[in-house]
């Protein structure tokens, strides 16, 4: 597989603030890649470097096989970008902005434009100053999804959308993936990332702390197990990887490192399992774990 984005050892400082401190990021062509991190972790700075708006102090970055700073125009012909905070020109209508953006990229698919305006329930005749935050975002999203490009870079694109529009957005991203396009999705909405992304990168303090598929990441964390047994179990506390064991008569609740799950289940079944629920770790738990480490 070729790489849509490959970044290694990226450094960028603003005065004394080290915004990026050796960041690595690899996005394979055709995947939807989640880009996660707490506020101020360096997500938007990374994206601006990828767009050639900022020049990195050190490190290598390639977007669609080219240098995003030196070959900005060529790279941008194949990119659509949706900023997190969309500002529009007050006296241009949404439709005018969509068409302008499309023409400044690789071109616009008129049929898809009409379809997207319909699905996002956007009124393209309103002027920029009269749109709400969510509607400004819809303008940028329609422009991005209707453009004929290979890579979409979306920086927290749904922060102003309602749940119905969020649903439309997710369908659109899936369609993009089905058409073989690559999406870099920076987001705070974990259910969205969980639903859409093939792989995720979690960054903190300008550095990548975790990267891989959701399955890979889950493997590194704990599964919650709660069970009702025929008899009182024993030996659970001594098993490796068991945490937060809570025993109340025949009922057991515990957390277990996912790669040690097998031994725990064997032990439980020796006591006779009446009912069992096992919950894989949510992305939120993954996320919180990394954030809390950041705090401590």
């Amino acid at each position, binding site marked *: 597989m070729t790489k849509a984005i490959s970044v290694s050892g990226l450094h960028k400082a603003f005065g004394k603030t080290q915004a990026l401190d050796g960041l690595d990021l690899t996005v394979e062509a055709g995947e939807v890649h989640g880009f996660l991190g707490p506020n101020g972790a360096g997500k938007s700075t990374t994206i*601006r470097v990828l767009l050639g708006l900022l*020049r990195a102090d050190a490190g290598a970055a390639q977007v669609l096989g080219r240098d995003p700073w030196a070959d900005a125009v060529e790279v941008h012909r194949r990119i659509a970008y949706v900023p997190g905070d969309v500002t529009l020109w007050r006296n241009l*209508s949404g439709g005018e902005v969509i068409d302008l953006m499309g023409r*400044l*990229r*690789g071109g616009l698919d008129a049929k898809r434009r009409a379809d997207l305006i319909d699905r996002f329930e956007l*009124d393209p*005749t309103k*002027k920029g100053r009269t749109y709400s935050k969510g509607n400004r975002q819809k303008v940028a999203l329609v422009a991005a999804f209707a453009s004929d490009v290979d890579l979409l870079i979306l920086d927290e694109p749904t922060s102003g959308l309602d749940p119905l529009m969020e649903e439309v957005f997710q369908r659109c991203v899936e369609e993009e993936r089905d058409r073989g396009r690559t999406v870099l999705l920076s987001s705070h909405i974990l259910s969205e990332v969980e639903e859409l992304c093939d792989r995720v990168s979690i960054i903190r303090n300008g550095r990548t702390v975790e990267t891989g598929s959701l399955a890979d990441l889950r493997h590194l964390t704990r599964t919650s197990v709660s069970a009702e047994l025929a008899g009182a179990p024993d030996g659970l506390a001594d098993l490796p990887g068991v945490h937060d064991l809570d025993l109340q008569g025949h009922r057991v609740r515990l957390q277990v490192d996912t790669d040690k799950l097998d031994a725990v289940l064997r032990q439980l079944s020796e006591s006779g399992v009446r009912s069992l629920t096992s919950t894989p770790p949510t992305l939120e738990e993954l996320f919180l774990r990394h954030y809390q480490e950041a705090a401590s």
Partner: protein
Amino acid sequence: MTASLAGTGVLLRFSLRRDRLTIPVWVAVNALMVLSMPASLKGLYGTDAERADLIHQVETNASFRALIGPVFDTDLGALTAWRIGVYAGLVAAAMSLLIVVRHTRDEEESGRQELVASGMVGRRASLTAALLAAGVANAVLALLVTAGLAGQGVVGALALGLGLAAVGMVFATMAAIVAQLTESARLARGLTSGILGAAFVLRAAGDSASDDGSSVLTWLSPLGWLENLRPYAGERWWVLLLFAAAVAGQAWLAYELAGRRDVGMSFFPTRPGPATGRLSTAGALAWRLQRGSVYGWSLAFFVVGVVYGGLTDGVADLVGDNENAREIFERMGGQSGLEDAFLASMVGMMGLIASLYVVQSVLRLHGEETSGRAEPVLANAVSRLGWATGHLAVAFGGAVLLMLLTGLGFVAGYGKEARPILGACLVQLPAVWVVGGLAVALYGLLPRAAMAAWGAAGAVLLIGWVGPALDAPQAVLDVSPFGHLPKLPGGEMSWGPVLVLLMLAVVLVGGGLAGLRRRDMTT
């Protein structure tokens, strides 16, 4: 009533804090303009004979009265009120309307008003605070003018000070009405400025028809009331009642309108635009964003050209035997005939004003970048140079258009010799471009200091306007690029300095663009 005003005090302090730089600058510039008058008028019209001559000229020259207004007495106070009154009134009105729109419609349009209104703030508090902020600014102006001109007579100084503040408040309350009607602050500012322009034109027409301010047209204009207040010439205090009635009536209407609409809404909602667009390049976008401003400046430059062109014929009569005035025109404009000297000084003045246009237009780049609107454009297949070039073409090309139009205006008004006048207008361009080039260089190389370009334009304007009248040393005049231009029409064309300025402009623009290519974009 008190509940609807809750929070006014806090908002007023907040407004004054936000305007802690702009209000003092407006007030200080306006007051200085007025207070510097007695000294410079004393130099111009020192003797009784010169003053009698001046009065005679004003009485007989209608276009001169249209420009400045009728003169009512010969002492320095009355001459000051005559020479600067209308213009200080214009500045006070502009300051007031900008303050009110900034703290009412601007706040609503940006959505900040919602945040404020959700606090313990009454329905009428915002409008009241905005009017009070304008009131504070105008009161300080009145105080400074009264105190500063007291040497010429306290009563006249008080009349002029109060008159200026009253004009300011008429336009503050006018802006308060217009701000209820439009959804866009920019439109509210434009409409109120248009009303101010109409007030100036009404007064000008009235004054050209009558030499004592008694024309109906003059009485239709608040600027006309100011001259009819007659500071230093038998003050008619009852005219202040007219101002008070207008301010009270307009404020009442503004509150009525504000009480009948929702926050953020207006009586003339924004019309929808096209569902599809034809813009397809960054250059077309730049033109689309700036064209309204280009149209407005073009109209103003043409009209001013026609007016000054029309005045040129009478200028020889006007300056007449006054050696001092003749000398000043010649210092500003050149040595040859007085009409040429007058034209040359007016063409030079339009060049100075054109440099304000260029700076405003160049700094649009800065505005687009800091507002975050440049980022999505540059994330497309648009190079930074391509993006900047579009705006710079509007800025530098627009200056050519403005100077050509003002030249055509001069030609139309004056009715003689088109070529030398158009040539003189175009010769200003290298100096205009140097000021624009400085703005590009600052924006590209030191983006945080980009706004300093306004300071440079202001300094050039000051040197060009005040320098000759104060007989400033050549070293100071040489700081401004305009000081190096040949004095045309009438003088000798010299290509040397023009070409040097042209090259300097190219270097400044080139340096700025090179800086823009290499630096980080700020957001």
